[in-house]
């Protein structure tokens, strides 16, 4: 079983691409993003960590932010995906599909090749 610390690191690692994926659909302000991420059960350890992450993504040029104010409403900072962010997300999706399939295969002993061969050897 992975430790809680390990799961926390795993969440931290995938949170950035998840934020990019949400922004791919439409620009969102901070609380909107937090609530959408919180809806994905177990992904968010605390709401506040989203903001330093957003700032890191913006520094890396993957998201951009803009103040928008509707008449009669409080101004909000909306975050949106940049072209570089879209490219990063596309690349991550491809890598993630392969990575998760590999890990899933190992965890469930379904993978053919070396591991399956070793199990067969022990059984004989």
């Amino acid at each position, binding site marked *: 079983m992975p430790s809680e610390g390990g799961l926390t690191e795993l969440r931290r690692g995938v949170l950035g691409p998840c934020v990019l994926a949400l922004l791919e659909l439409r620009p969102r302000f901070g609380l909107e993003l937090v609530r959408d991420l919180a809806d994905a059960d177990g992904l968010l*350890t605390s709401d506040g960590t989203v903001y330093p992450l957003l700032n890191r993504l913006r520094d890396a040029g993957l998201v951009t932010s803009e103040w928008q104010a509707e008449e009669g409403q409080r101004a909000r900072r909306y975050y949106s995906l940049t072209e570089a962010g879209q490219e990063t997300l596309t690349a991550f999706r491809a890598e993630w599909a392969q990575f998760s399939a590999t890990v899933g295969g190992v965890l469930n002993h379904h993978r053919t090749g070396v591991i399956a061969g070793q199990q067969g050897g022990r059984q004989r």
Partner: protein
Amino acid sequence: MSGTALNHPLVRDYLRDLDQALAGLPAAQAEELTEQITAHLDDALTPGAGDEEVAAVLSRLGRPADLAAEAATRSESGPSAAKELAAVRRRRLGWRGWTAIVAPVAVAAAIIGYVLIVTSVPPLQARGPSSWWFRQDAARATYAEADGARQTTVPVRSNQVQGLVVTLYNPTDWTQTILGQWQGSNAPGNALRSRITVATGPGSDFRHLRYARPATIPPHQSRWVRLLWVSNTCLMKGGGQGNDELRLQLRLGWVDRVEVIPLRQAWFVVGPSQGPCD
């Protein structure tokens, strides 16, 4: 708007603790995170929220110390471009150190001459268009002129973000880098805290440019400079608070200096402010 929720004692305690926890971060980074967390609380809390609701929202937000630790990882990692720049600077330092050993007197003279030249160049100038940042303020702004002095005024929107943008021109042959504000806030609506940023490139549509700090104004070019603040000043009906200059910390080459830049008009917010005045 839930200004009353932001005044809840638990929220005020939380923001105070956050301020202390972020003390070790660069000022611009700390200000930005505080602004984001404040906006989050303003959105998440219903007006007049009770202790239980406020405590639940703050608990989900996470401890201020944890937020500061998370933000600090940003400072440590930084963008790769910043690392490369730091490496170049380290190499330059090595070269300067070697030169200092070979010819210390020449280097000292060169440095003194350099500082004298840099500090004697003229400051940035407010030249060109300016505006209130938010459309709702720009729509309600009034303008007046008397005895050659100009003033623009908008109603204060208590506990909401207000702001202005001005065009600053660099009349020198040096690139000037705006590092931040000098001696606190330059904002008419908040005497303690405001955030100044600079458009990262030229453009006329100021609301759709990217703003950052530190940011540079190249020689003989202009840039939009934006000042945002959460208006928390207490004003009676007809009372106002304003400012007609920017006090900035700037870097020219290797030298930091302070510039007091007169604005072409005074910027005022007027009361009455909404909500209680502590």
